[in-house]
């Protein structure tokens, strides 16, 4: 753990550099177009926030997509009623989802374990079903809530901005259109918020508050007898992660002003769970990594077809090329979910710490192989582990 925290500053610098240069280094992977980059940033933010709940406290929520949806709807309404400046929409979206998270969290956290998961699932499904049916005046149901040319936008008209007769206005951030720079402004906007959100999560991780959350995950009963009232801690974590979700949801709207009910469905909540686990639950960077991998799969892998596969394998002799394409093709294109599901299972079975654990393992393997001092160290810890296990067995 300590190594991870060695320096706030250097972590943030490296992280920011990687995020901000993404349009460049993602070019060879074909993932450098604004829409996908924005998705990386937004879902990264969502996962980073979700990790504050699931990663730190171990509470598995299957309902966080609901907060994302609430953030989205609030943001669209802010665009419709107040101003096309997304600043307000993002603030309001985050606050509103925080309020929802407070209410749902307050009730759900009365239970733990699988009961907590099912409670959050039930709440989220209710929100989804209602958004789809009775709440259509607010959500516009299946069609999705959009902005219209003749929306009132009271705040904008108050300061004398009128877009009548110009069609549907675009979202802006204090005058700069989010779609400027061919859409890359939207990405940088989301990226800056992601960096801020990541910094916040870093602070939470290394704060006394974060330590207490990790202790709750480790042994909640002990926390109680150590003098902590665990429920407010859990509720704070729940609300914080809910607000991250709301922030992500309103960012989606800032960049593309539309909110659909399907982003609240439980499978959408499942997706953020997948991201977090895949990347490495409880690690700082893992969830972000998971989000990028899944969104990359969803957008690039899913669009691969056989002719592109043939191109990939055309260095092979033709019969081998055919075989490879035959083997690989079920896993790409519309079958990308299969790859995802299989990958996810492998991670849960063999690498419960996610991709980050894989990185650590490879790292220590290399060290063991090439560096002697470290090798000794790890041998010691292995011995200790063996010892501990033997003792447990003896009990």
């Amino acid at each position: 753990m300590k190594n991870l925290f060695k320096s706030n500053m250097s972590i943030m610098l490296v992280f920011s550099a990687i995020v901000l240069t993404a349009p460049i280094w993602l070019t060879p992977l074909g993932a450098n177009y604004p829409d996908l980059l924005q998705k990386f940033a937004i879902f990264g933010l969502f996962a980073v926030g979700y990790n504050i709940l699931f990663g730190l406290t171990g509470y598995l929520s299957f309902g966080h997509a609901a907060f994302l949806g609430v953030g989205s709807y609030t943001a669209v309404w802010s665009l419709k009623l107040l101003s096309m400046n997304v600043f307000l929409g993002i603030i309001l979206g985050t606050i509103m989802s925080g309020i929802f998270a407070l209410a749902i969290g307050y009730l759900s956290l009365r239970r733990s374990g699988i009961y907590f998961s099912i409670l959050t699932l039930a709440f989220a499904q209710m929100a989804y079903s209602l958004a789809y049916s009775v709440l259509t005046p607010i959500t516009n149901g299946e069609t999705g809530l959009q902005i219209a040319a003749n929306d009132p936008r009271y705040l904008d008209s108050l300061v004398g901005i009128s877009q009548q007769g110009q069609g549907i206005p675009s979202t802006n951030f204090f005058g700069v259109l989010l779609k400027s720079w061919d859409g890359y402004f939207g990405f940088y906007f989301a990226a800056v918020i992601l960096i801020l959100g990541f910094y916040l999560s870093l602070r939470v991780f290394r704060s006394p508050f974060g330590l207490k959350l990790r202790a709750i995950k480790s042994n909640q009963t002990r926390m109680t007898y150590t003098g902590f009232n665990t429920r407010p801690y859990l509720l704070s974590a729940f609300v914080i992660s809910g607000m991250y979700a709301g922030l992500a949801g309103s960012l989606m709207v800032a960049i593309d002003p539309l909110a659909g009910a399907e982003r609240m469905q439980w499978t959408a909540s499942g997706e953020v769970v997948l991201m977090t686990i895949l990347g490495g639950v409880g690690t700082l960077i893992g969830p972000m990594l998971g989000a990028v991998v899944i969104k990359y799969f969803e957008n690039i892998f899913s669009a691969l077809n056989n002719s592109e596969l043939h191109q990939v394998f055309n260095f092979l002799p033709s019969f081998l090329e055919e075989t490879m394409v035959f083997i690989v093709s079920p896993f790409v294109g519309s079958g990308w979910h299969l790859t995802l599901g299989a990958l996810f299972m492998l991670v849960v079975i063999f690498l419960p710490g996610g991709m980050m654990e894989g990185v650590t393992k490879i790292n220590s393997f290399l060290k063991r192989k090439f560096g002697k001092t470290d090798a000794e160290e790890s041998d010691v810890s292995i011995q200790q582990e063996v010892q501990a296990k033997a003792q447990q067995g003896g009990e």
Partner: protein
Amino acid sequence: MKKNDTNKSRRTFLKTATASSIAATAPASMFYIKDAFAAEDFRNNPKDSKTVTLGFNVPQSGAYADEGADELRAFKLAVKHLNGEGDGGMMNTMKPSMLKGNGILGKKVAYVTGDTQTKSDAARASAKRMIEKDGALMISGGSSSGVAIAVQGLCQEMGTIFMAGLTHSNDTTGKDKRRYGFRHFFNTEMSGASLGPVLEKEYGNERTAYHLTADYTWGWSQQGSIKKYTEELGWKTKAAVKTPVGAGDFSQFITPVLNSGADVLVLNHYGKDMVNSLTQAVQFGLRDKQVNGKDFQIVVPLFSRLMAQGAGDNIKGILGSTNWNWSLKDAGSQAFVKSFGKEYGNPPSQAAHTCYVQTLLYANACEMAGTFYPPEVIKTLEGYKFDGMGNGATEYRAEDHQCFKDVLVVRGNEKPSSQFDLLEVVQEVPRAQVEYDASLLGGELGPYKV
């Protein structure tokens, strides 16, 4: 490549900002600037490229996936014909036409596809991918009005022309119409206007209707239109119940119909939903019922052959309306059916027809405008009159980008002569009967330049 683009648009942005007097005098930063393309440049301008890319965004999963698959077949066929392969299909019957069978403006047509999943979010994401990553110059397709409206909004924002596929809600060319969006398909207002007189003739003036309505823009629109026209006949509306899209099991919505006192069930469903709800309605014995001394009737205002195929015998004798049917005998329809049937072994659906026509219309408009520059293409399409595309003389009305043409009222065929002969045309309702004033549905098209 990317860097150049960014620089260019940044420059454009600055130019606009300084040129605009609002910008110069704006007091606060909270104002609004319009981005603009210079006349010679626009998003995904093919410039010297030998090909031009079109994006076909169709549902490949979900309740409308059958329609989506057929649309994709039609698109592929249209691309073939545009590139001068195959027998040319409707390119031979379309008039006026400047299509030469050498691509569009001499550039070979390439295409990319996406899956809308019949979800607004997913549809927009895949449209965005096609525009931003694959450089699609035009987006077409879709089999849901919810999706069409969402994608149309996006296309306006991105400055990319959207040639809507199957979308039947009034809102697509009404409340939510866009300058960059065009619809060849008819709408619920036209369905109501054409179906009304036939319903009166067949079922009389004293009927009580019960609506089951897909809960999204199209369902609401169709329910509104049918209600409007049937109530004009003197029908009563007992209840209008909204059902979630893709509900699968409709039994809980159908059972209340049994004892409601209604004698007509209007199913405002489409695709798989309609197949399921109709099948289940028949299973629950609705069609064998007598209510108020009359035979219980089911009406499916929007019909398609694909649905009829799914519903089997249950569809026989049921009335509805459709945009086009393969049994039409005009030269355009025949040419298209022949070409499509030869390629795929079955006749095209109405969804396939509208998508095929839309692709050809777009290509032709580019040829006529002599450029791909969207505002010019839009201006060419607005008010464009054409014929030979299967529905008689047709006009793209400039005010709302809605095509006006004849509408078919059809009935599930009692004695089909072949496995595809599922719909019997009751009446070809002339265009004049279904035309309405553009102001009826409201909306605002928005600017040419974005």
